[in-house]
């Protein structure tokens, strides 16, 4: 793994990213209430949408003409959206705070760890958290009757993939931020995706021209991928979703490492 990284055009590291993950885990043990509370957001949404709005909506077209109850339609989208929100929350606010105020990375980079370790370590941590959120949400959704296929087990790695894509790019973006006020701009990118990536209503509700725009956004692919898995409709189109998100994650990871290198090792 470390050797492969040495020949690739990625920033320097010592293959010691796990030590940073361990550090985050130790810090997490003191702030776990906060992080655990993040799990409730999608559950509240699932309840509001599935139970409250679902009664008004009835059945929805989930893609290829198959009609499903609204809760079944919206649950996978909420899983994908919470993977995005969780990843962005951790990788941007957290990394911004560590860079600007806690100066954590200055001391990390004074050890054998390199910028790649920082990037990989922070992103891995975001993914681990995302995985735990996803598992908890999947359990709740199953109990609520919103899961209909065994393929749904694969939504765990799928949610992790969504988390990777957003965490890595989000962390790179965080390195450009100057003040907390800049986070409002990030919100401006995240919120439309949350609302309009075929999360709460199907793609067919849009005019044809807008459909193309929606399909270009990363969360759309995350939602479509997880929805197909949860409904057990696995087709070749899945490869497109996975490919899109994997490329985004890889680009974001390298970008983040480069940025950390530029900011801290000048």
């Amino acid at each position, binding site marked *: 793994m470390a050797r492969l990284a040495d020949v690739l055009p990625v920033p320097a590291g010592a293959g010691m990213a796990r030590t940073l993950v361990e550090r985050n885990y130790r810090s997490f043990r003191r*702030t776990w*209430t*906060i992080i655990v*509370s*993040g799990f*409730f*957001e999608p559950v*509240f*949404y699932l*309840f*509001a*949408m599935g*139970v*409250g*709005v679902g*009664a*008004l*909506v*009835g*059945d*929805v077209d989930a893609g290829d003409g198959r009609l499903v109850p*609204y809760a079944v339609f919206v649950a996978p989208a909420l899983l994908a959206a919470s993977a995005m929100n969780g990843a962005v929350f951790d990788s941007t606010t957290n990394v911004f705070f560590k860079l600007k105020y806690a100066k954590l990375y200055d001391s990390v980079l004074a050890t054998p760890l390199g910028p790649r370790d920082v990037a990989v370590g922070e992103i891995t941590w975001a993914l681990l958290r995302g995985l735990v959120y996803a598992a908890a949400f999947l359990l709740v959704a199953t109990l609520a009757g919103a899961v209909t296929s065994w393929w749904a087990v694969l939504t765990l790695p799928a949610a992790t993939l969504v988390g990777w894509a957003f965490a890595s790019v989000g962390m790179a973006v965080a390195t450009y931020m100057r003040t907390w*006020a*800049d986070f*409002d*701009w990030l*919100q*401006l990118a995240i*919120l*439309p995706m949350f*609302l*309009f990536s075929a999360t*709460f*209503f199907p793609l067919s*509700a*849009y005019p044809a021209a807008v459909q193309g725009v929606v399909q270009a956004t990363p969360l759309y692919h995350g939602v479509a991928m997880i929805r197909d898995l949860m409904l057990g409709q696995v087709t070749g189109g899945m490869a497109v979703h996975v490919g899109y998100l994997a490329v985004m994650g890889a680009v974001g990871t390298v970008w983040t490492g480069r940025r950390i290198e530029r900011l801290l090792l000048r």
Partner: protein
Amino acid sequence: MAVEDRVGADVDVPVGPVARGGGWPAVTAHWFVRYRRMWFGTAVSSFLAPLLYLVGMGWGLGRLVDDGAGGAGGVPYLLFVAPGVLAATALQVAAGETTFSVMGSIKWDRTYHGMLSTPLAPVDVVVGHLVFVLVRVALASSVFLAVAAALGTVRSWWGVLAAPVAVLGGMAFAAWCYAYTARLETDRGITVLLRFVVMPLSLFSGTFFPVDQLPVWLQPVAWATPLWHTVEVCRALTLGVVEPWAVVGHLAFVTLWLVAGVVVAVRVLTRRMVV
């Protein structure tokens, strides 16, 4: 330097207007000077986000609801949801302006300590802060209502009054957020408030669906919150189906929350700062 001889100064003669200080308007003025530098960022959270919710929920999800159940509460879903988002926006802006800024003024940059070393009293600090929040909430509510009206979601001239009602509901909540935050030692409690109170209130207070869709045991909880009453009145006003006594009852209840909240907030801040 204007600090000329005051050796053995007029020891027992209090100085005229200065002895009373600038009162709460001086505190409000402080928050506005601060806000001048950051209003642009808040435009996203206070103006754009609610409009995105209105369009996403009202128009997109609304098509499903109107197809499925022929609307909600007897009207197209967009008209149902617009006053809900209005009241929820007021609530969220109010919570946003009375949590981290209160904690920061007590613990981080400690500006409250500076204020209280002058003639100002805790009541000036609380009221001055809340008046600033009032203006912020009023701006956000008015802009939202104007755009919502332009989208055709307001059926009656009564709807103009929906903005002040939303502001009242927001302020009732702001006072309690203030009192809660003024007791906190760390900002973790704020995250808990936002996730376990603000978020569920925004979703379940009759904003996106009528509360009679909730399980029976949860409905009384919704009735107890100020947001549900605010939403009910805002919706009655924008749809033009006003029952005067119901409106008076709702508003009286929300006003009670506001008054009690301010009293508690002043007490909590006094106990926190004057030790």
